[in-house]
């Protein structure tokens, strides 16, 4: 099971990287995560953003990432400590 963290998108750094303010962490994560982390998007499930990474523009990412509440399922980590993750919206589904 991969580690999962949640939080709000802060800054978009590039066409596939952003800063996340971490607010929630899954119980049983294998690692500790700081309150601010850099996320590299490997896979996405966000309303308003195409599945095809090559279509992404920084503006598109800013619209759907900045301020939004996001779930990041971490698949690996770069040598710089950036987290490669699947990113999706969280907490939106109806009851």
């Amino acid at each position: 099971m991969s580690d999962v963290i949640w939080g709000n998108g802060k800054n978009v750094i590039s066409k596939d990287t952003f800063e996340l303010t971490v607010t929630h962490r899954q119980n049983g994560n294998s690692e500790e995560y700081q309150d601010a982390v850099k996320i590299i998007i490997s896979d996405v499930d966000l309303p308003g953003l195409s599945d095809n990474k090559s279509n992404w523009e920084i503006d598109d990412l800013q619209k759907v990432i900045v301020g939004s509440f996001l779930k990041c399922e971490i698949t690996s980590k770069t040598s710089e400590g950036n987290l490669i993750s699947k990113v999706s919206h969280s907490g939106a589904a109806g009851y």
Partner: protein
Amino acid sequence: MWDSILITNNEISNTDIKKIISGEKSAIIIKKFYEKKHCEKIIEKINSASIQNDSKKFNHIGPFLMNYTTTKEKYFQNAKKANIIFKKIFLNVDNPINKIKLIILKVHPNYEILETKENGMSYAPCTIRRHEKGSNVPLHKDNVKYEGIEYNVSKIDNQLSCILHLQETERGGKLLMYKKKWEKKFEKFREIEFGYNSILTKNIEVDTVEPKIGDLVIINPNYLHEITKIQGNADRITLGMFIGIQNKSKKIFSWA
């Protein structure tokens, strides 16, 4: 004063709608909008027929768009199935969807209400929700312009939520409407599963709406709201649909 507009003669006005859109009033409650005998007939049909729920998680009939924010194709597939189910459920009863649309249209005389479609596919007309003893609906808002941006119905000016009470609870299951309109900055108070932390409504004015059979409750769902825990043995059963108003084109859409 943050309270509901109570209607007893089935006649709402455009001013009433404007008051809930602007946040001057919490809700419009149209008392005895739908006859009790029709509510009971619908419940009887739901209970007796083997009707497939939309998901294993919830005891609901019909897809809810917010559960399909990035899976549009699946939403429309399930909406197609739901349209067939609802036709059966509403056979030989006064069709509640048409009745709700009509009352909304009456206060928007220059508007046209359309059968809402996208690429030839129909949206779900409503969702029938059954909430059982012990369950509640946490603090949340509904805003298709934010979460439903992949859908055409997100291109509206105002969204209304219409809830028809088909079965009332013994106790609990009350709607709490808070005088607090959602803003994007509230996203930092999200709960993982659903909704928002109750810190957002601390010291905020609240209006309570009782679930009474046959009543139609209309709210601006972009104001934070929740449903209290259902107590007693009677389930809270409602029919819910959204109305979208597009002012420039003078069109009204409905979906669930």
